[in-house]
């Protein structure tokens, strides 16, 4: 085990005010089970799970309530014991509507977990992958890509490096930080399970240099472990937590355009995912809860809560003492890439890393001003794009033109809109353009199939 500074640094990026001090001192506390939970079937990327319970059924904590539906999908389990009250349509943070199971909770302390695999090092990799799959684990950094798929790269793409993403470059959020501080040893074991499954040579744990105590905690936890684990300290900045940028910083390899990390022999997993893998393998616990940071200038008592999925945002805010001042914006996730929500009646899920409540003074106000061509977005873009030009193309509905100048390489990190003095909604333009490109590609596909 050794600790090094990441040898490379990607071009671009920004340095926002982090405001992490709001919540980073508060230790993870377990949120009491609410009386009723609405567990969405789509908490991950891909096809929603298929409901496999019906109203009136009794479920235990950990019982399967939604079956994995297709290859890119993840199963869903009951976060608490209780009775299924109904199957309803519920709204997710992104505004998509999906099926959800409403469970009336009943604290009987009973669980229905998987059989623990303590001797994981001597267990067949396929069995571990299946366990991760049946536990419904999806990337907990924000995108929610099913982890089982990520850990099953094709044979022609050997993985030599596992990167554990503990950068947490999103302002305000502290959940990964607290998890690293309090569960460092479990994360290490989780990382080793990933390493074992992929047969990777090294594990690199990436942490930004504004979290020195997390670095120390991870160092301590890893010290007694085997060789091949390395802690890479990244200079604080955004988007250090972005997969492609992180791989570049640590290994100097650039994920090719349109490619995936596995194309350069890397797999990046969030530290929270690593913890979930540990729990699923060693304790047999499916993914039914996670640490969520409830923070922001508009919340009374910022905290890091261990929350069972399906708890509504309103319950989280109430648990944290309610709102402090007139709240203008509620963000599910971090303020750079999270989703603003229109109401608090939204259930938490596997990708909810935080809930940030901001008063009107702290938020971005987009305007319809024209681009003044200052080029700051060009300097800020970590992908080497020209956001100003892209947005102008998209505004003029020249989607083809935008695609030609690498629209699809945009990672929607928001660095451009963060620095734009004209406060243009650049990311929204990019998304709109991407939707247009996707539609066109789908139409072209349909044409060729005809």
């Amino acid at each position, binding site marked *: 085990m050794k600790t090094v500074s990441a040898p490379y640094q990607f071009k671009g990026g920004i340095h926002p005010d982090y405001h992490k001090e709001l919540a980073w001192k508060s230790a993870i506390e377990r949120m009491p089970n609410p009386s009723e939970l609405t567990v969405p079937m789509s908490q991950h990327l891909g096809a929603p799970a298929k409901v496999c319970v019906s109203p009136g059924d009794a479920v235990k904590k950990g019982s399967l309530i939604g079956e994995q539906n297709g290859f890119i999908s993840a199963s869903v389990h009951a976060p608490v014991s209780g009775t299924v009250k109904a199957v309803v349509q519920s709204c997710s943070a992104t*505004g998509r509507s999906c099926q959800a199971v409403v469970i009336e909770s009943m604290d009987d302390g009973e669980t229905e977990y998987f059989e623990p695999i303590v001797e994981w090092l001597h267990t067949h990799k396929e069995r571990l992958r299946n366990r991760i799959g049946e536990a419904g684990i999806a990337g907990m950094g924000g995108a929610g890509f099913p982890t089982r798929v990520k850990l099953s790269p094709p044979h022609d793409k050997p993985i030599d490096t596992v990167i554990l993403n503990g950068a947490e470059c999103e302002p305000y959020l502290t959940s990964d930080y607290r998890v690293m501080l309090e569960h460092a040893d479990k994360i290490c074991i989780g990382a080793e399970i990933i390493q074992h499954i992929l047969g990777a040579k090294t594990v690199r744990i990436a942490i930004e240099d504004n979290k020195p105590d997390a670095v120390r905690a991870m160092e301590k936890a890893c010290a007694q472990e085997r060789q091949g684990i390395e802690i890479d300290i990244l200079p604080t900045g955004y988007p250090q937590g972005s997969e492609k940028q992180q791989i570049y910083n640590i290994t100097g390899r650039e994920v090719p355009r349109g490619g995936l990390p596995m194309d350069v022999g890397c797999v990046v997993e969030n530290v929270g995912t690593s913890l979930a893998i540990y729990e699923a393998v060693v304790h047999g616990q499916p993914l039914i809860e996670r640490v969520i940071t409830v923070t922001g200038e508009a919340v009374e008592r910022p905290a890091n809560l261990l929350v069972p999925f399906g708890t509504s945002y309103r319950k989280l805010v109430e648990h944290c003492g309610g709102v402090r001042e007139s709240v203008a914006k509620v963000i599910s996730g971090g303020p750079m890439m999270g989703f*603003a*929500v229109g109401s608090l009646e939204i259930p938490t899920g596997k990708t909810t890393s935080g809930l940030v409540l901001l008063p009107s003074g702290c938020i971005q106000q987009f305007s319809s001003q024209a681009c003044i061509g200052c080029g700051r977005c060009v300097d800020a873009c970590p992908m080497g794009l020209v956001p100003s030009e892209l947005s102008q193309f998209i505004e003029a509905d020249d989607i083809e033109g935008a695609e030609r100048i690498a629209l699809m390489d945009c990672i929607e990190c928001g660095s451009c809109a963060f620095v734009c003095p004209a406060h243009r909604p650049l990311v*929204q333009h990019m998304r709109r353009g991407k*939707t247009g490109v996707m539609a066109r590609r789908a139409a072209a596909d349909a044409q060729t199939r005809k």
Partner: protein
Amino acid sequence: MDSETIKFILTPFLWVGLTGLVIGVSLALAAKYMAVREDPRIAQVTELLPGANCGGCGFAGCAEYAKAIVVDNADITLCAPGGAACVDSIAAFMGVSAGSVEKMTALVMCCGDDESAERRFSYNGINDCAAADALAGGDKGCTYGCLGYGSCARVCPVNAIIIEKGLARVNKALCIACGKCIAVCPRKLIKLVPTAAPIHVLCNSKDKGADVKKVCSSGCIGCRLCTKFGDEGAFVMDGFLAHVDYSVPITREEVIEKCPSKCIRRN
């Protein structure tokens, strides 16, 4: 006339004529021996175009535009100098139908303006319905209703759509039923209806009556009153949403009064 004058007049004639002849013959020979076969329709469409070669259509000259029409099915309405007559002749030549039998008009199947339909949150972003719809499902309380950010109005080639109180309205007199607004609406609530049809159900919400009432005071609640008071078969229920069967002639217009949420309206 003396011979000087004759010479003075004849020589230029002779020379220019000669030059023209040489050039003409060589061009004719060139055209014959170096001909390249192409779709004869291209030449014919080129004939139909005004031949101003103004490039206003975005193509490099009339021949190029004709080629685009024949080969790539380009839009035939791009030629400004040619005008409507040109469009008609090309339409006739290419066999593209110019108009359908029954005159249709686009209609926004929503009457929930800012007074009757509530908005769930304040939207802050680009003026585009699809973009607004992609953010937390759109700010309108009703997930079926018109968002009113005017994407349809912007694509309308004849400026027939206006946004009033957060609701798009089609001006029947101007609408040419081109269908561009229908394609661009993220909520798919603009439909082509017969221009002659007198009344319509201006609601698109398939939700139960109680849910509709929560978000909009002028949405169809599925009460079925119109099926009782209207003409036989003129109103058809699709779940909790009534709609007009335009093949049935309407005689009893008092349903307009009977509809409790007043979403049956004249257009």
